[in-house]
């Protein structure tokens, strides 16, 4: 539903701090991580060194404990000299942690800002993972500025450029992550003539994500959303089909940590489009 009622109360100091923080991260200062970080008690972490973290990071996913991710980040942060050769790993871990901070905007933005800086370092160092690093640069930057309208609009072009590179180099990363996120960006950005928003391009990218990676629920969910936003009633059958496919793929145990949130998004879109969905399938192994 579009209509909403809310009570607004935003401490101005927090907003000013966030703007300053974002200005810092966007100012560019290679190889200097001057952003504030919280301390993690390494004594409670596994006895990992940088190489071990890099190895373990290959298995990190939605099911990975947040404490494990925090330990990995703490090890990488504490390394001397700074593990610039692992920058691609750090920017990914930063994003994974930032993305989980849905209730703490300040921490989410700090982690995302740190992820942006590590991505910049990785690119400056000539990383081998150019496509992946551009992807994590884009998604971290998105999280860092999404709640600051001026910065968000200002950085749309940079985010889109990074995503286009990742679409070209690593379209299958995170089961179609570059296609999925660039598609959503085109859907949500201010449309022509004010901005880069392009509903047709969004549908094209998300259809591709669905076709190539049908097991990722968000590919179906974002595609359904794009169809509804762009084609409206003309695509109701397709929207319903994609929402049902979202539920089917979401039933897999891989998605246990996010099932509740994404189910809510499915219901919101179904409600908006006045679609009555069949009961969701139960969790599957």
């Amino acid at each position: 539903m579009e209509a909403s009622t809310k009570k607004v109360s935003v401490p101005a100091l927090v907003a000013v701090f966030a703007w300053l923080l974002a200005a810092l991260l966007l100012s560019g200062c290679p190889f200097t991580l001057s952003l504030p970080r919280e301390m993690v008690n390494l004594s409670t972490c596994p006895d990992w060194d940088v190489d071990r973290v890099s190895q373990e990071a290959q298995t990190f996913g939605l099911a990975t404990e947040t404490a494990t991710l925090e330990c990995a980040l703490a090890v990488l942060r504490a390394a001397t000299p700074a593990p610039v050769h692992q920058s691609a790993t750090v920017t990914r871990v930063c994003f994974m942690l930032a993305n989980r901070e849905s209730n703490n905007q300040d921490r989410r933005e700090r982690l995302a800002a740190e992820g942006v800086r590590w991505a910049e370092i990785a690119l400056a160092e000539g990383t081998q993972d150019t496509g992946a690093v551009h992807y994590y640069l884009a998604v971290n930057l998105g999280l860092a500025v999404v709640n600051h309208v001026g910065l968000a609009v200002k950085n749309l072009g940079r985010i889109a450029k990074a995503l286009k590179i990742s679409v070209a180099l690593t379209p299958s990363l995170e089961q179609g992550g570059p296609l999925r996120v660039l598609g959503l960006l085109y859907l949500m950005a201010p449309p022509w003539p004010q901005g880069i928003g392009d509903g047709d391009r969004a549908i094209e990218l998300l259809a591709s994500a669905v076709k190539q990676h049908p097991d990722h629920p968000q590919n179906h969910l974002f595609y359904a959303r794009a169809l509804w936003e762009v084609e409206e009633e003309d695509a109701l059958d397709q929207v319903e089909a994609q929402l049902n496919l979202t539920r089917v793929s979401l039933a897999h145990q891989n998605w246990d940590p996010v099932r509740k949130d994404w189910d809510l998004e499915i219901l919101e879109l179904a409600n908006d489009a006045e679609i009555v969905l069949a009961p969701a399938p139960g969790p599957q192994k």
Partner: protein
Amino acid sequence: MKTENRRLLFFLGLLCLCLAAPVGAKGLDILICYPGGSVRAQDAKPALDSMISVLESIGGWPQGTIRTQFTARTKQCQQQLNKKPHFAILSLGLFLQNREALQLMPLVQPRIEGSTTDTFRVLTRKDTAENLAQLKGKSLGGPWLSEPEFLARMVFDGQIDPASYFQLKPSRRALRALRKLAQGKLDAVLVNQMQYDGLALLPFAAKLSVAFTSQALPQIGVVANQQRTSPEDRRRLLQAISAMCTHEQGKKLCELFSIETFVPVNEKVYEAVIQRWKQVQKK
């Protein structure tokens, strides 16, 4: 639907909701209608919050309790409007339709590139139709078709009733409609001034031509419910908005939305439109 810039309409909504909370008041209801847009309420929240934080600092407004309602649907906008919010950002059509019943009073207009008006045009493919008469019974698309009464009376000035004259094919996205026009899937598309000015950015612009141009219509701004707001509420709102584009932070926001300044409503401008609304009957 009437406005030069839907993003501007949204901006005005943010501005209004941030400035209208009086000290010690229980709160004011602010309705923000973004008709024709594809913004969801939850997606608008960050923009609303950012704007609030900046604008509260502009006038030293205390943190207050503000009840806001946001919708991008014309039907929902009308439903919410019937609940009589204190202030609202509406399309010109909804304003004219509800002005008398809800005692709505325009307060402020934005000025963009020296203009406070908007003009609509019907675009066609070159060599297919040169005027409205040649488009009778043809398909008309675009994002400005959700208020046929407004189109009939104001945009087409009573010359035609678009609901029966055309096959209306509303779309939330102008670019999509224009691509369909270029591909021959639509016969005509209605665009506003900003979209017309942006045609040069499109690779198929040379294929299009103008079959109809409306009169210049005033930009929509903030409107107040005269029954539910005091003269002091309205004066304070006007004063704060007037300072917006000269404030250090507010100036950046104005620049972001290409707004030069906000000007008090010239009552004569709206009087003329109101008279036309009353006099012109759709055919």
